């Protein structure tokens, strides 16, 4: 059944989602600041009104803009709208999830988070892949499946939306760490150890935010990380490799500006963990690297030498 679907954000992910929707036969309203987009059969608009004609709206803007864009969009929405965001970020100084922020700034309650090993480039070229939707509303999982799912894209659902959102943020940080390790020439065993440290702290963070640790075993955590190691060449991992070979630190800030969420997430996840007396060594190390207070090779080698039992935390 053909539907009208809204996409907010004309970046790589927004365009890939728009393209996937049109491929499934839907009519897409793409809100973007740029007047022209290069996606065929997609109507680009700079106004939220046509977007609000859709029941299902994907939000593909960086976490730092979701509040502002959500407020503007929200003025055109009511209770029938379903919002699904695709960001790996969190909002505000604490660990406010973006789904919570969307519920605060818009009247929409039916919200979801699309996450997992879903990379814009692969979505656009319809390679085999998978994704997970965190939402308390089963109808949202159905709607996302109908919008972008198909034989090449498996879409799974979970009610643990907080778990999905935190897992997604943590995996972003671990992806950079794995990129650094790979750039330093650290072998598979070392990378695996690093991944396990990251997953342990991910589980602690997810639980402290009210999510379920086992969400990390699925597409939102473990599978997402396997995709990184299997070489999906995602931006976080590429950035990690660049760090390893000594790119200047201005580059980190620049990339953060280009909305690589993980750069600011490392510090915030670590601060949250510290307040709750939870060990989060990977986030701590990466935050120091991003802020330029530690050398990447030192940070990774210290992590590899650390004792996971000692980092068990609460």
């Amino acid at each position, binding site marked *: 059944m053909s539907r009208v679907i809204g996409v907010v954000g004309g970046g790589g992910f927004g365009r890939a989602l728009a393209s996937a929707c049109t491929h499934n036969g839907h009519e897409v309203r793409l809100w973007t600041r740029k007047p022209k987009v290069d996606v065929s059969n997609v109507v680009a608009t700079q106004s939220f009104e046509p977007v609000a004609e859709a029941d299902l709206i994907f939000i593909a803007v960086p976490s730092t803009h979701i509040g502002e864009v959500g*407020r503007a969009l929200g003025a055109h929405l009511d*209770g029938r709208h379903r919002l699904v965001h695709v960001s790996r970020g969190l909002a505000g100084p604490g660990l406010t999830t973006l789904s919570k922020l969307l*519920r605060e700034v*818009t*009247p929409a*309650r039916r919200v979801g988070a699309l996450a997992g090993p879903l990379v814009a480039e692969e979505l656009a070229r319809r390679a085999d892949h998978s994704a997970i939707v965190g939402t308390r509303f089963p109808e949202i999982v159905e709607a996302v499946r109908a919008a972008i799912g198909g034989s090449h894209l498996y879409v799974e659902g979970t009610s643990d939306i907080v778990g999905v959102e935190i897992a997604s943020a943590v995996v972003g940080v671990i992806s950079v760490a794995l990129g650094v390790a790979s750039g330093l020439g650290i072998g598979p065993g070392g990378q695996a150890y690093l991944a396990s440290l990251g997953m342990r702290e991910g589980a602690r963070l997810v639980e402290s935010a009210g999510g379920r640790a086992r969400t990390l075993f699925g597409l939102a955590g473990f599978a997402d990380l396997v995709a990184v190691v299997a070489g999906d060449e995602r931006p976080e991992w590429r950035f990690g490799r660049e760090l390893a070979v000594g790119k200047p630190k201005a580059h980190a800030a620049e990339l953060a500006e280009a909305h690589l969420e993980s750069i600011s997430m490392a510090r915030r996840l670590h601060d949250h963990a510290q307040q709750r007396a939870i060990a989060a060594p990977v986030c701590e190390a990466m935050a120091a690297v991003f802020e330029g207070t530690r050398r990447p090779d030192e940070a990774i080698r210290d992590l590899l030498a650390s004792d996971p039992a000692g980092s068990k935390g609460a």
Partner: protein
Amino acid sequence: MLRFLSERPIRLPQWNASRTRPGDPAIFGFNDERDDIVATVARRVAELEGSNPQHLELILNDAAYHEIRRLESQGDKEAKESLPFWRSFIRRIAKMSEHEKRRALDAMLEHMARDVAGNFDRRVYDFARGAAPRLLTGLMQPSSLPSELFGKGPSTIERLLNVEGPIDKLRRLEDVGTLVYVPTHSSNMDSIVLATALDRVGLSPVVYGAGKNLFTNPIISFFMHNLGAYRVDRRIRVRAYKSVLKTYAQVMVERNYHSLFFPGGTRSRSGMIEHRLKLGLLGAAVQAFSRNQARGIGRPVYFVPATINYALVLEAETLIEDWLKERGQARYIIEDDEFSRIDRWAAFFRKIMGLSSACIIRFGDPIDPFGNPIDDEGRSIAPSGNVIDPRSYTLRDGKAVEDHARDAAYTQELGEILVTRYREETVLMATQIVAHVLYRHLVEKSSSRDVYARVRMRGEVSMPLSTLHAEVNAVRDALLSAMHRGEVRVSTFVRAETPERIVARALEIWSGYHERTAAHVERGSVVIDDPLLLLYYQNRLMPFAEILGSDASRRAAAEIYALESSR
């Protein structure tokens, strides 16, 4: 036939019972509707639970099994009367035809629904609102009886109650939609106190479920039963019974009966503000809204978060002991607490008589089932300030539909919103603040012990009065800043009085009612006599521990939350 209950509460004969007038709240016409309500509830539960033939047998077996277990453990008159029926019934189930099973289920559900359904007698209502508070005061304090009964002005009980919040708005909303009051729950007195408060400010009476243990006192039972309360027998563990209760609550909201639910489920054992809610009845009200919408009934439902704040809690000692004992399911049923002991009531009332505003009921701003604020005309307001139609939340492809999974998700979110609202609407009083300062002093002095060891430290630790006064002052200041940020509220007394008076008031309230003294003054210091009681009162402050500016506050909070999450 099926007997779940041996005794029924007393009703007055129906001659002379007055007819309803247009504009009366729905509850005034309850008795005319009762049979229809009972039949509707039984039919809906039968459709819900009995749709699958295999499931049907399971439902009947579940009912028989749990009733036999309950009756055997009760071993009372009811058991004698009903056990033979259930024992023979459980043997027959497997041999019944599908038709017979359905008939048995229908009969059982009808019986359950009839047992749950209350009564509303306008005469009892008129009597209760006029004379009862005075009579009750008089009973507790005979010397005041003449002035209570014949005096002018508010009765003592009315002076004890302070009612705050957007009352005018609630009065207007009563005519626009159905109000569902969702207060915090500390005491068995809550429903009585809330009903009195509603009447006092001119709001319509509400229907609510009351535990059957509240019906053991014949006088209270008479009033409760005839004022629309429905009976909840927590001993019945039959699955279908829970479904009957929930459906009954839902049907009442669908039919525009203003309702009262305690989303905490049972009284807060720890004294903490509820932070985890039972979503069953909340969900019933949310579903009532969507079912009405799907049937073209556009009437809104408004949730009114409320806090009932006591300076002194009737059952404090039993509740906190029960919390520490942690007896699993047994915790849900306390049969013989202070509420069922008339001597404790009398002591309690003698104590609080002298205190004005010993109980503050604070109604918060109402919200729609989706957490949106409501304007003065009863419309839902979006974050943008736009008016939105709450019906839009029930739409699917442009049509309002019922959807249990969706409504369950809305209910979860509503529960989260209520937890935040409870904190914001809580009114902290002298007893809670002083208890916290004393308790955290004890935490500092017993840092190597755990909660269980600490609460046994009776009379071992004291605190110089001057230090206590200074710290009470500091805690009050921190709470006042939090109040300005909208995070909590502080009682007028605490706002206006000196720390010396605040401490004196707390000590005065505790002494003489609770069986053990909480603390007493001795040579310029306050001696901590009963840490357990202090723990109960201070737990109200635990969500605000971060802002109280002391490591001991934080440490106390960390311990309490760890205990809470371990159960």
